[in-house]
Every structure is written in C-alpha cells, then in structure tokens.
C-alpha cells in the first residue's frame, strides 16, 4: 500500500464515529490529567491502559496516542499558573510563563501556550506523515558520541540561563550534576551516594526535583511574603486576546521550533524535555532582546511550548517505525501497544497500515480538538489564580505530594520532595537560579553515561569524536556559543 492510500485508510479510522469519539476521549483525559500539577503523560497513559483491553486495537491506540500528546498539551497550565511543572517537557515553559501570569497576563500566556502547542503539534504531524520512513534513519543515526555532543550543546545554555551572576548559575548547575549521580551507575553497576538506602538505588526522579525546586520553593516564598501587600496584579487573568504585535513576536519561534523540536523528538532518549530546553536557548541566543527572557517574554514561552509538542509527535517516529521507545512515557505507550497485540517496528506500516496511518491521521484531528477544547477553557482554568492565597498554597502542596507519590507509591520520595523544596527556597533567598540546576539534572545523567559509553567503545580515546561528523559539528556549535560572547566582549573592549 502506498503512503497516500495508507493515509486515506488512516483517515477512515480517524474520521469514523468511533475514531472521532475516542480521539476526543483520549485528548480530553490527557489534557485534563496533564493540567494537574505533578501528573503527566506517564500517569495518564498508565491509568488508561486497562480501559483499552477489550477495544479494537486501532481505535484504542488512537485514543492512547491522544492521551499522550493531550497530556503534553495540557501540561503547560500548571507550569504557567502555579510554577508546578508536571512533566519534564514543561519545565522550560515555566521560565517565562509563570512570570507572565504574575504580571497579570495569565490568560494571554495560556493562549500563547495553546496556540504554540497546536502549531508545533500540527506542523510536526505533517512532517511525521511525509517523512517517517526517511526519518527512521535519522532516529538511529545517533550513537553515544552524538548524544554526548547533543547534551554538551544543551549545557552551553547554563550561562545563558543565569540572570545575574554567572558564578551562581554554575554553582547551581554543579549541584544538579551532583544530584543526578545518585543511584546505581549503569556502566559499572556500583551504587553511588546512596548511603546504603535502597530507596535511592534508582536515583532521584525528575519530578521530585522539579516540584521541589519550583513549586515548593515558590510556596515558601509566598508564605514568607504573606504580609506584603497584594497589588492584585497576580490575580488578574487579563485578556486572552493576542495583539498583532504578540503574534508577530511568537511567529518566529513557533515556526522555527516546530521543525527543530520535531527533529530532536525523533532521537530516542532526547525527547520533549531536551527539545524544549534547546528551543528556549536557541531563541534566547538569536533574540534581539534576550534580557527579556525569564521575565515574561512571549518568545521564551512560545519556543519551549512549540518544541515540546513537536517533539511529542517526533517521538512517534522511532516508536512506530523501529519499535524503539525513546523515553519512559513512550515505553509505557509501547506497553499499551503490546497489550493490544500490536508490535510496532519496521513492518508495522505494511502489516497494520490502518494502525500506523490511523494514529498519524488522528493526530491532526486530536490537535484541532485540543485547541478548540483548551481555548474556551482558559478563563475557567485561570480562575485558579482567584483562589485565596492560603488555599491556593495548600492546593499546590497537596498536588505536588500527590504527583510525587504517584510515581512509585513510595513515601520516601515525599521526604525528598520536601528536602528539595527547602533547598530551592534557600537557593532563591540567596539568588541562585534554579533553572541551571534542573538543566544539569536533566542533561547530566545522559551526558555522563554517553561519554563513558563512547570512551569504552573507543578504548579511552577522545579521537572518536573527530571521526563522527555529527558529533563534531554539535560540539563545535557548543564551543562557539560559549566563546562567541567572550570574543564579542573583547572586541568591544578594544574599540573603547
């Protein structure tokens, strides 16, 4: 079956009454669960798996895919409104989204996030449809050396995530690196910094760190400043309307990051998180007014939101065409496929075209439903800010605890969450930025492992990076981003 008739059969699945109904159910449940602080696509998919047992596989998988990208779509709300990201992919959304909400522009921020998500999602589905067979070659083009180079490039952002002291940003990043080394080291099987505690053997989950450093630290600050007069600003939702100026401003990042995010999403192991960070960094680098980033920049919000949704579609490339899950979430999704007796892999497109193309076609529909569903809901969702502060603070704490407990049903993680809340609070008091910490935490683990894998393969020789064109160019770009500002600074100095 050629791609066109394949896609037509896919649309038949997606546009059947059942198909439409279950896409709707999928994205609705996904976006709803995604909105809850602390709950993300993994919880959403795991909750839905038992429901699919007796369903027709193509319909069931269309729904499960909807749950997945729906949860990423909805995940931005809690980042923007409460500074409480529920998935790693929406951490970067909080960088500019939360400041915007604090300035009384919550409505606008949510609208931007929804439109950026929609565009990222839709553009990437077109790419997915046109290029999946080609892209499966891209998905496997990255070996350990290339991953190391990509992580290195991502880390060059640490300096650019600093607002103020670069030294403090580096200290914060170093802490992130230290925390990520906790647990069993994959390359040797040795446990590191676990102090004999079995709860630490698998390392610390990302969500524990993110909710602690962002949500709980914010709560602490709010409690501490409770006597400060509330100017009413932060309770304002503001207008949903985007001005022409706003649209102009977000069009650049959105169009660029739809592509970049998708490509990064195609790489197994990279995914939405790294895509969103790299999107944020590149947009900050090329922006005319980078100083606005972190203070409520429209570009800074639109870029990661576009990229994480584009990357989500991208993640379907290795999953559908190779049977390789690129992340924890897609691994659970792969489990859902297997339960239904569908084996994703190179032959899926021939063996089960209605499933392969059905999922892709349904994603067009799903993204439209998400936009239609989310935009009118914004005024209601953002009413959350009208909740009296003491109540809101308690809600954030409760949801953070629930989100963390839902990862492994282990109370130990709750103590860790509190510990990171305290660390985050002190970091704020002494103005150490939390973003470099979380960036180092996310990239650090994979960076260390891929470097050691590379060096094992090359018997310890760094020369291997010279033989790998992709790795070499990524490292070169990384070095340039570090050196360029320094050189520019010197030139200015000479002139004056």
């Amino acid at each position, binding site marked *: 079956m050629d791609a066109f008739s394949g896609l037509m059969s896919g649309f038949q699945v997606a546009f059947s009454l059942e198909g439409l109904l279950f896409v709707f159910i999928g994205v609705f449940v996904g976006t709803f669960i995604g909105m809850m602080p602390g709950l993300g696509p993994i919880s959403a998919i*795991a909750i839905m*798996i038992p429901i699919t047992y007796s369903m027709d596989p193509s319909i069931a998988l269309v729904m499960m895919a909807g749950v997945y990208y729906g949860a990423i779509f909805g995940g931005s709300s809690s980042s923007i409104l409460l500074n409480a990201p529920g998935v790693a992919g929406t951490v970067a959304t909080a960088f500019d989204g939360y400041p915007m909400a604090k300035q009384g522009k919550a409505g606008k921020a949510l609208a931007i996030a929804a439109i950026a998500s929609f565009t990222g999602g839709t553009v990437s589905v077109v790419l997915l449809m046109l290029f999946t067979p080609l892209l499966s070659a891209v*998905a*496997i*083009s*990255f*070996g*350990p*050396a290339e*991953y190391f180079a990509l992580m290195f490039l991502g880390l060059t952002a640490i300096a650019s995530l600093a607002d103020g002291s670069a030294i403090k940003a580096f200290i914060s990043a170093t802490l992130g690196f230290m925390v990520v080394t906790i647990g*069993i*080291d*994959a*390359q*040797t*099987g040795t*446990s590191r910094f676990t102090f004999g505690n*079995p*709860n630490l*053997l*698998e390392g610390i989950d990302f969500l524990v760190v993110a909710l602690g450093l962002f949500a709980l630290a914010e709560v602490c600050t709010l409690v501490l400043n409770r006597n400060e007069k509330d100017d009413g600003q932060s309770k304002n939702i503001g207008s949903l309307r985007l001005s022409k100026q706003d649209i102009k401003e977000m069009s650049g990042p959105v169009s660029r990051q739809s592509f970049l995010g998708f490509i990064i999403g195609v790489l*197994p*192991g990279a995914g939405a998180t790294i895509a969103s960070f790299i999107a944020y960094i590149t947009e900050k680098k090329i922006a005319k007014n980078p100083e606005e980033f972190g203070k409520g920049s429209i570009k800074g919000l639109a870029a990661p939101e576009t990229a994480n949704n584009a990357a989500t579609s991208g993640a379907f490339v*290795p999953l559908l065409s*190779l*049977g*390789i*899950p*690129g992340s924890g979430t897609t*691994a*659970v999704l*792969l*489990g*859902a496929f*297997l*339960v239904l*007796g569908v*084996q*994703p*892999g*190179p*032959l899926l497109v021939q063996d089960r075209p209605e499933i392969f193309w059905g999922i892709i076609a349904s994603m067009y529909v799903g993204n439209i439903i998400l936009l239609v569903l989310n935009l009118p809901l914004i005024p209601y969702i953002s009413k959350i800010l009208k909740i009296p502060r003491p109540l809101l603070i308690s809600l954030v704490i409760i949801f953070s605890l629930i989100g963390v407990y839902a*990862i*492994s*049903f*282990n109370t130990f993680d709750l103590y860790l969450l509190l510990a990171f809340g305290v660390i985050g609070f002190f970091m704020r008091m002494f103005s150490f930025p939390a973003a470099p910490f979380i960036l180092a935490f996310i990239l650090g683990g*994979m960076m260390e*492992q891929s470097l*050691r*894998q590379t060096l*094992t*393969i090359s*018997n310890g020789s760094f020369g291997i990076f010279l033989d790998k064109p992709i790795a070499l160019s990524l490292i070169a770009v990384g070095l340039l981003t570090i050196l360029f500002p320094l050189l520019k600074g010197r030139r200015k100095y000479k002139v004056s």
Partner: protein
Amino acid sequence: MKKLFGTAAASLLLVTAAGCGNSSSGATDEDGNWTPTQPIEITAPAGPGGGWDTTARMVSQVFEEEEIIDQRLPVVNKAGGGGAIGWAYIAGQEESPHHMFVGSPPLILVPLNGQSEYSHEDFTPLANVIADYGAFVVKADAEWDNLNDLFDDMKEDPQSVSIVGTSSPGSMDHMQFVKIAKAAGVDVTNLKYISDPESGGLTSVLNGSVDVFTTGVAETIEQVRAGKVKVLGITAEERLEGEVLSDFPTAIEQGIDETFINWRGFFGPPGMDEAAVTYYEEKFKELNDSEAWIEIREKYGWGEMYMDSEEYAAFLEEEAESMQALLDELGLARE
C-alpha cells in the same frame, strides 16, 4: 550479618503491620486444606508495562476469569531499586498467605550485586510458570554469521568486540552473554560491555556504534523480520516454536554447551504456611494447563516452565551458585 539485619527489619515491619490491622490468615479445614478468605495481592516489583508487571497482570487475569481462584487478585506495582523496594515490602508481610510477588533472575542477581538485602532465600517459592531466553543480535550486514565466528574473534581479542545491553554489568543482559561466552572459551573478565538504559541498545547496534546487542528473544523478532538484524544465537536448550523464532539457532547446537533461562515465577512472603503453599502450587498448575494461559503464552512468546515449590527451590539454589561463581570471577560480587 546481612541476614540478621534482614530478619530484624522484617520483624520490625511485621510488628508495625500487625499493629495496623488484623490481617486474616485464611481458612484451613480439618484435612489441612487451606483456602484464601480475602483478596490476594500480587506485587510486581517494578512499574507498569515491563515483564514483571505483564506477567503479574496476566496471571491475575487468568486466575480470576477462569475462576481458578475464587478471590480477586489485584496487582500492585512497587517500583524501585531494580526490585529491592518490592521485595522489602513482601518481606514485611511475613507469613501472610494473601501476598505474593513475581520474580525472575534479578531476584538472584540484584542481591549478589549488593543492591538488595533480600534474596530468593528469604521468600517462599510457590511455583515457576514461564521461561524466556536471551538472544545475541548483530546488524544484518555484520561480519559474523554464528556464535562461533563471533567468539573466535573474541578469543583472539575480547576487546575487539563491543557488547551493549539495557542494564548494568552484573545484571541479566550482561550475565547471559558472559555465561555463554565463557562456555565458548572467551576471557570474560575483559569484555567491552556498555549499558544503555536510555535508548536500549538496539539503536546502537543498528547504527553500528556497538557490535552485539544482548537482549530477550521477543525483543528481536520484529527487527529480524524486517531484515535489519540477525540473531547469532539464543540461550535456550532447544529451538523455540514460532514463525521467526524457530529460525534462531541455540548456543548448544553450535557446540557451546550452555544455557541461560530467564525464568519467571511466584513467591510468597517469608514463612508462608505449608498448606497455603500446597494450595498455590495446585492453582498454578491448573493455570499452567489452562487454554487461556496457553494462549497468553503464545501471544507473548513465553515458554512453558512449570516447577512446584520444592523443585523451584532446588533450581534457584543451583542458579544462585552458578551466578555467584560467575560474578566472583568477574569481580562483581559484593557483600
């Protein structure tokens, strides 16, 4: 010392548990036949979606739907520590006949690697149900066509071949390769093994950064059908049944007299009552022979491997000894 601590911790947990509720111990009639009187909780010591979780859920489903056991059998996930968290939880349910968990070789390997204070010795083996096997995979255009080609190269220079698995050295992926390679005469203390928990090894073999992928048989089928990889050998005793599966040569038929079984079975808490053990043995036997279970086995490509409690305990003892010896040789065993 380790054991002593384990017992102390277990009894402490037990005291706490006993203080919290009145857990029923089931009903034993005059002939000493035991029957459950409340739902039986099956623990999967990992998150949803993996092998343990799937096995637990399928067993629970067949027990309930075929009405083999007249109680609900909810599955709970206790993820963490490569199983250690779930095992510690069951160890705390001492003597309870309404708890069990699904186990496999990590139950032996993780404690030997020093990552869990509880091992198979601490629990009550009920029955083994299925067997899975390891496969060694290379890219379709690789220079080796069978295990002997590969091991000949490795005998000359073990470092000339790189091996990737999903989990760390000392774990199942690594040990199944070590066991077979050692039997073929390769110096296994000097292997170039890398672990790739993020993208799982297959990518690295497909793009040529690593030579050999050590994994489970089921994971390879799709890639072989698509002509992307070839399977040099599997760790089963004899060829498996199935469309693609039956093409995979075993190590034994290539003259390497060694196997590695990824057994999967069920265990109760420490000190489970004899009568309850007998009950479960029978029920698992019934499950093993049921149409519904045979269908599930085929669907997931699992082999049949029923063992009752006694056989199982003896088998585990042997497995543990052989793994201990291998880990000692590799310098990976820890106290």
